[in-house]
């Protein structure tokens, strides 16, 4: 059994309390950070090969390094807890079961980048995670772990807990910053990157919940140890959210070098009885689908990129042979059409068109050129938009059609499904 780094405290019933966290050695990494000093922390994080675990996989140490050395005014740390990528639920587990690990990680990061105020943006629907995390912040404040002169270090820090209001695009870091500033969540053109000009116009580091939770173990046990858990280009373990047609859906923390086959067959208990694998989305709904023949891949950022898909948020959605892929595409296309923020014309229009085309195929009104049209429309929008939303959407658009073309053609030719003939199909959009 592989070592658990991020979920190490999950088995302890009081692990979410300050007493429980401290009983397990909590906040010792923070003390050590203060002894090490800022530059040594940053060096350790670089050594760890930690890569952002929210979706983009950007090296965390490198991101911190973009903050200008010469500057006036404050630097902000913003925690992206706007978990929203379909198929992903690991940040919810961390917020609920190990909130102090996140607070400690935030403090280490804040100290390293010289930040006095951090903001955590929690998705609005996450009421229970918000309550538990807020309680943990209050505990930390009461214990002098937040506030002025923390642990006698001379370092001051406060955490502002901010709640979203329902919008997938606010998980995109610049959309999140717009939303934090009291606006609709429209992404901003980069450059300038947030590390140069972010929240309230100040240098800002936006890090994901799970990424920050890696920091206490990195400081306690060293960057080299953390790096050794993973691959050459990505250190550590990762929390895989596995859902869909498996026997044991849930969160599995494993080294990023685990194969998709092992994750599905060994850890998640394999397929439901009598069923076979049809396809799997390995990194949240924006990742291209892999067929049953393509699951001998490692789950690290580069391994999945080489397989033509992406590690994304590590949300693994498993589909067995009862799945109608045109219906799956319809559901996914409905999502992207609904969540496109409307700022960039190619994204706003293409997501709507593809949703309509996927709908008519599913409902038996498709025309023979529709699958080609989906691929064509999808490709035309690539690289034309402010943020990565649309480039994410084309992952499923193109891969579902190209890898399961026969299913789409069957729907168009027969006006019905070959997987589940005559069944009722999904209702229209909300």
């Amino acid at each position, binding site marked *: 059994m592989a070592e658990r780094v991020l979920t190490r405290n999950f088995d302890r019933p009081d692990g979410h309390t300050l007493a429980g966290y401290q009983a397990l050695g909590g906040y010792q990494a923070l003390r050590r950070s203060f002894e090490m000093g800022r530059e040594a922390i940053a060096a350790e994080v670089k050594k760890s090969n930690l890569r952002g675990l929210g979706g983009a996989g950007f090296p965390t140490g490198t991101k911190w390094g973009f903050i200008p050395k010469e500057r006036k005014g404050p630097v902000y740390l913003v925690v992206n807890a706007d978990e929203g990528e379909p*198929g992903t*639920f690991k940040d919810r587990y961390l917020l609920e079961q190990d909130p102090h690990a996140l607070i400690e990680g935030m403090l280490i990061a804040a100290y390293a980048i010289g930040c006095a105020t951090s903001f955590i943006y929690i998705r609005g629907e996450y009421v229970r995670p918000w309550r538990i995390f807020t309680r943990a912040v209050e505990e930390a404040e009461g214990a002098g772990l937040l506030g002025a002169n923390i642990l006698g270090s001379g370092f001051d820090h406060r955490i502002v807990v901010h709640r979203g*209001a329902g919008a*997938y695009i606010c998980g995109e870091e610049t959309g999140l910053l717009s939303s934090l500033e009291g*606006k609709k969540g429209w992404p901003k053109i980069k450059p300038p990157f947030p590390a140069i000009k972010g929240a309230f116009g100040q240098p800002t580091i936006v890090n994901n919940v799970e990424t920050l939770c890696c920091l206490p173990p990195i400081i306690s046990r060293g960057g080299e140890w953390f790096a050794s858990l993973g691959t050459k280009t990505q250190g550590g373990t990762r929390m895989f959210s*596995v859902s869909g047609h498996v026997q044991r859906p849930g*969160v599995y923390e494993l080294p990023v070098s685990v194969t998709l086959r092992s994750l599905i067959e060994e850890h998640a208990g394999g397929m439901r009885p009598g069923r076979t694998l049809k396809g799997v989305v390995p990194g949240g709904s924006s990742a291209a689908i892999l067929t049953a023949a393509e699951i001998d891949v490692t789950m690290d950022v580069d391994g999945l990129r080489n397989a033509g898909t992406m590690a994304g948020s590590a949300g693994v959605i498993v589909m067995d042979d009862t799945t109608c892929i045109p219906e*799956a595409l319809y*559901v996914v296309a409905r999502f992207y059409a609904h969540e496109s923020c409307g700022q960039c014309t190619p994204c706003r229009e293409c997501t709507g068109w593809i949703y309509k085309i996927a709908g008519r195929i599913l409902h038996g009104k498709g025309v023979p050129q529709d699958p080609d049209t989906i691929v064509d429309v999808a490709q035309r929008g690539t690289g034309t938009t402010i943020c990565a939303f649309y480039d994410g959407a084309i992952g499923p658009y193109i891969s579902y059609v190209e890898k399961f073309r026969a299913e789409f053609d069957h729907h168009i030719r027969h006006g019905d499904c070959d997987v589940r003939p005559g069944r009722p199909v999904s209702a229209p959009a909300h």
Partner: protein
Amino acid sequence: MSAVSFSPAQLAEVRRLQALYPERRAALLPVLRLAQETFGYIAPEVETYVAELFELSPAHVHEVVTFYTLFFQAPVGRHVVAVCHNLTCSLLGAEDILAHLQARLGIEAGETTPDGRVTLLRVECLCACEVGPMMQVDDEYVGPLTRDRVDRVLEDLR
């Protein structure tokens, strides 16, 4: 809704929220949440009132309110039942759950029961796919759902 105004305690809370951020506009989402909890939904006159508290244009507040799914622009029922219809939940039978809820409540998704008890919504991924098919009932996540479990949940909603 004639007199739209917060209580003195709520106004103090508004000022506290505004002071948390380098720019007070950043408190707009939290204050709109407070407004919705107080007035039930965000009517145009509530937008105007909140805009005054921030010295923002009502148009800005309207733009924000209409952007986010958790702000309601019309009255909702005493309970809001939001069923996820995204990929995992759909693979696991979300449409059957929705059909059952619609039949039991006698309304379509997006509507409120005539007695004002329940508003039924379709929503995108709530990020609890491990318990799919699932829904959010007011503040709580509920899943995995079966028709029987849905019936039990509905019985508890008064």
